[in-house]
């Protein structure tokens, strides 16, 4: 109970709010793990919570963390509005904050640590172009399977992807035949939507810009039924075991690997410093389009993963060889040089 006493809030304690567990597996399986490891190593107290995609919960968790005496607050916002409300509250209580993975517009956090989401989309676009070129497809028909229409990140991914493909569309090199968003990143719905895209295009889809590995797998599943898998390149994101396996067997063109560990470690370092009352210098900044201010940032580069560099993900320890190279994939693993 002493934590509520304003004077006694000296022991460093770092609060982290993760957004959900459904848009991507990374939050619970990777971020939580790496952050915990870093905090434990530094010997600071911490409290990591997941808002489960619910804004009300996001805010109650923030309220409770502030109430519970955290000295630094790290948030992955669900949207800028709620994020800003939380950052404002924390600031009023004199608690420094870090925007983790997603920038809170107008929020004015101390730091912003992230992968560049537009860059992720750009890698996907480039990957698709690369695979199509390798396959030698002329004037390919492209279908875009976007993430949740209510998720701002999905908009950013799409923006990046389209920035690569748009010139090709305009030049009539590529043809955009369908472009639909998948509510809630729901793979099952994604499968149905893609099935209908394929039907509508009378089977003539030559490349799929899928926003993540789950949606990519949904598209691949439909392609398999039509025995078109492997012929039609599909993109992805998150370097999930499933996505990497799809790449190994050639059903998926590429995925985007975000070295979550780097992101988590960088965040943990900044947070621990803040908790101790220090303010570390970082080299990059990001412009907050709403407040016009430059937020000190650590921006990490996402990496495109193709068949020949799947091993990088394993080397990084993001997925283990045991998970990835099950009986069905052992041969492909060897071929891809994973040992």
């Amino acid at each position, binding site marked *: 109970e002493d934590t509520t006493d304003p004077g006694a809030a000296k022991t460093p304690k770092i609060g982290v709010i993760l957004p959900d*567990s*459904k848009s991507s597996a990374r939050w619970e*399986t990777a971020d939580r793990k790496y952050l915990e490891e870093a905090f434990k190593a530094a010997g600071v107290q911490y409290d990591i919570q997941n808002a489960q995609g619910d804004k009300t919960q996001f805010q109650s968790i923030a309220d409770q963390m502030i109430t519970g005496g955290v000295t630094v607050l790290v948030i992955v916002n669900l949207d800028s509005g709620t994020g800003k409300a939380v950052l404002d509250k924390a600031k009023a209580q004199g608690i420094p904050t870090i925007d983790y993975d997603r920038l809170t517009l107008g929020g004015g956090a101390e730091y912003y640590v992230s992968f560049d989401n537009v860059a992720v989309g750009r890698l996907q676009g480039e990957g698709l172009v690369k695979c199509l070129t390798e396959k030698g497809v002329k004037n390919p028909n492209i279908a875009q399977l976007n993430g949740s229409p209510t998720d701002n990140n999905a908009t950013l991914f799409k923006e990046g992807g389209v920035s690569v493909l748009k010139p090709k569309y305009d030049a009539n090199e590529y043809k955009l035949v369908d472009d639909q968003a998948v509510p809630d990143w729901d793979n099952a719905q994604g499968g149905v939507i893609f099935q209908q895209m*394929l039907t509508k295009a*009378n*089977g003539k889809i030559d490349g799929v810009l899928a926003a993540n590995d789950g949606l990519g797998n949904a598209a691949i599943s439909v392609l398999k039924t039509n025995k078109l898998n492997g012929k039609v390149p599909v993109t992805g994101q998150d370097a999930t075991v499933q996505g990497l396996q799809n790449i190994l067997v050639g059903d998926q063109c590429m995925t985007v690997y975000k070295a979550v560990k780097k992101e988590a470690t960088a965040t943990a370092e900044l947070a621990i410093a803040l908790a101790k009352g220090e303010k570390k210098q970082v080299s990059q900044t990001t412009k907050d389009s709403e407040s016009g201010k430059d937020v000190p940032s650590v921006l990490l580069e996402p990496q495109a993963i193709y068949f020949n560099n799947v091993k990088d993900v394993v080397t990084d320890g993001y997925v283990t060889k045991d998970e990835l190279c099950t009986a069905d994939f052992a041969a492909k693993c060897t071929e891809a040089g994973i040992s």
Partner: protein
Amino acid sequence: MSAVTKEPATAVAPQAARDEGILGYLRGYGQKVRGGDMGALPAVLGLLVLCVVFGLARPVFLTAPNFANLLTQAGPVVVIAMGLVFVLLLGEIDLSAGYTSGVCAAVLAIMLTTHGYPWYVGVAAALATGLVIGLLLGFLVAKVGIPSFVVTLAAFLGFQGTVLWLLDEGTNISVRDSVIISLENEYLSPAVGWGLAAVTVLGFAAVQLIQQRNRRRRGLKADLWQVVAFRVIGLAVLVGFAVAILNQERSRNPLFSLKGVPIIVPVVGVLLLLWTFVLRRTAYGRHIYAVGGNKEAARRAGIAVDRIRISAFVICSSMAAVGGVLLASQARSVDPNTGGSNVLLYAVAAAVIGGTSLFGGKGRVLDAVLGGLVITMIINGMGLVGWSSAYKYIATGVVLLLAASVDAFSRRRAAASS
């Protein structure tokens, strides 16, 4: 048996066959429909209207490949809705049916992919999970007495967590077992399709004939042979037409042939037969209707109401388990969203649009199939119209409303004349 029935009947049985001939029968049917007793008519009308609308908007909607898509897409919703019919018949609800299917799908995927068991072990485990869930829900509703809305809302949250937990906080598990995959992704060979159609029609004809003969023997009013023949021929035309379309070549890959009746069709057909039989021809089914119509009357008639209620939840959850297997087959993968999102709402809507009442006592398993087709047709058609999400949501709502109002108008007519 009793003091009364031992007496010779002093009057003729009240129901005299007054409408003679085929014309009388048609007149009777017309009056019935005008009186509002429309059976499957509204749902069928709804299906026709949707076909016309989407067919005009996107001609590809009415092609053989899309027809096959429609049937495979409808599979999971129809199966989950079938189970829900039992719970709805009691005037209860199962909000957790969607996530139950998710949990069962996760169990299946873990058994198959993580542990490498053969498909039948996986399916058995999934069904057993569904059964246990049903027992638990039924127990809480019937014995503890918590309203089913609350129990299944709690289960909705709990199972959402369970799926996450089973899938290690959000990883996807691929399903690669060929038997499981085939359910939603493979097709019967054309010959087998025709064989199945023949068996269906002949079986139906046989059952009809036996029933009518039994009634005639007892001196009870039986249907005219013309009517029976009409029914059989009607079914034959319908089934034959569907098989003919599905046996067309649909492949877009010239190296490879894609035709035949989707395997899901006979699977759903068997489930439909089974549950229709249970509801209409067994004492258990009769008791389900009785409990849904008037729980107190059923209790006074000596029916073990609690047991009936628990069993309905068990059937519902077990069918959700089957639905989960189909979901896994369809997506070839299981993730934390499996069974989530709108699966439950669509399944309930399927049952209700088909004509099942939310207040209990009224509904058929066939409703789930027809309503499920309506819902799937809406989603399928929307997938062909390349609108933005906002318009798609709105249009889906509007189309759902229109489909439901066909039903509403028929029922208003019924209410006005009674």
